[in-house]
């Protein structure tokens, strides 16, 4: 056995433990990945997209490595990680924070699923902590992509490029895996509170998605409900904060030493 081969085998085993159980076939060409992270920007934006675009549940994701939590909806148990879609767009949502040991296997299975569905574009969404968020009325959105062509799409839509820095967590791994597998992907980050649910940042992200996908998605109701969302998202934010601490999310605030 090669050195550390047993670790590779363990990773392989974890990948196989993820099951994407389809309820119906995905027929769209773009997917949004909005997982709990900084300011719950991805989660809030995804929930709004599901509601506004009236998306239906098309798949649930199960695994023995997920926390032992089952969501009950309309008297039926379901996985906390699910995929919603219509015939144009899909959204991956999670009601539990993605812990460090879940990231690689989950992103591997999801990117394989993206590939088998021949997706044209994967958009991961999240927040980037801003120390003076209180002074910002309209949070700016930054983007990083897997290709020059997509860089052009970001620039055309006036989304500032995230030039240098560190990305800690599922979105960074997703981006890397998409690049390796030749899947078009971008990661959009809105300036946001770090530890407080930030519906304002989520609205900025939705506006950026609207421009990229040329879809009209209204954010008026999201902003009107902002205070209610901040209360109901409180507990998920707290649990996400604990997970962000474990994955050393604060590294994103560091000034990176770059080799060019």
């Amino acid at each position: 056995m090669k050195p550390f081969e047993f670790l590779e085998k363990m990773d392989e085993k974890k990948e196989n433990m993820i099951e994407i159980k389809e309820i119906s076939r995905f027929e769209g060409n773009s997917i949004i990945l909005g997982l709990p992270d900084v300011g719950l920007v991805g989660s809030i934006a995804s929930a709004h997209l599901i509601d506004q675009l009236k998306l239906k549940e098309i798949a649930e994701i199960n695994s023995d490595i997920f926390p032992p939590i089952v969501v009950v909806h309309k008297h039926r148990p379901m996985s906390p990680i699910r995929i919603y879609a219509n015939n144009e767009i899909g959204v991956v949502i999670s009601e539990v924070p993605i812990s460090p040991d879940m990231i690689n296997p989950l992103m591997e299975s999801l990117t394989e699923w993206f590939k088998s569905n021949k997706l044209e574009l994967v958009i991961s969404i999240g927040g980037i902590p801003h120390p003076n968020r209180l002074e910002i009325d309209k949070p700016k959105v930054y983007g990083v992509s897997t290709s020059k062509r997509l860089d052009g799409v970001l620039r055309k839509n006036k989304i500032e490029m995230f030039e240098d820095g560190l990305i800690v967590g599922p979105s960074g791994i997703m981006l890397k895996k998409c690049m390796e597998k030749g899947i078009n992907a971008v990661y959009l980050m809105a300036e946001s509170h770090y530890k407080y649910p930030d519906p304002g940042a989520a609205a900025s992200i939705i506006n950026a998605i609207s421009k990229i996908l040329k879809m009209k998605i209204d954010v008026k109701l999201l902003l009107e409900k902002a205070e209610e969302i901040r209360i109901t998202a409180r507990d998920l934010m707290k649990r996400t904060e604990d997970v962000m601490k474990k994955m050393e999310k604060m590294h994103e605030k560091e000034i990176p030493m770059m080799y060019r």
Partner: protein
Amino acid sequence: MTDKLPRIFGRVFSWSHNIHTKSLEPLIHIEDLGDEIIITMDLPYVRKEDIDIYLTERILEVKAQMCRKYRCEGLGRIQKGIEFESFHKIIELPSNIIPEKARSRFKDGILEIRLPKRIRKRKIDIK
């Protein structure tokens, strides 16, 4: 919309609240800048005039009344129908502070309190 939207977050509800006083514990962030401690708190549904801040050298207490009650709907049997009308938090400070020099501001539902530390420091000459 959005009757549904907040429920996605509210399903797995923890006990960071007090049913008897109908109060929620706010999310907080504490930053130690060396000479000063900055504490921020997320207080949705709260207006500036409804916040009370009490301070000693080592303890900070914040009570904030919401402008409308928040009622848990669409949750499980245990939480359904519970109403909350305020936030309450007591924080033991990491160092002694000077209460008279504390400053605070409230913007977009976020309370920021700046607490200068009581520090006696001496400059040391380098030989």
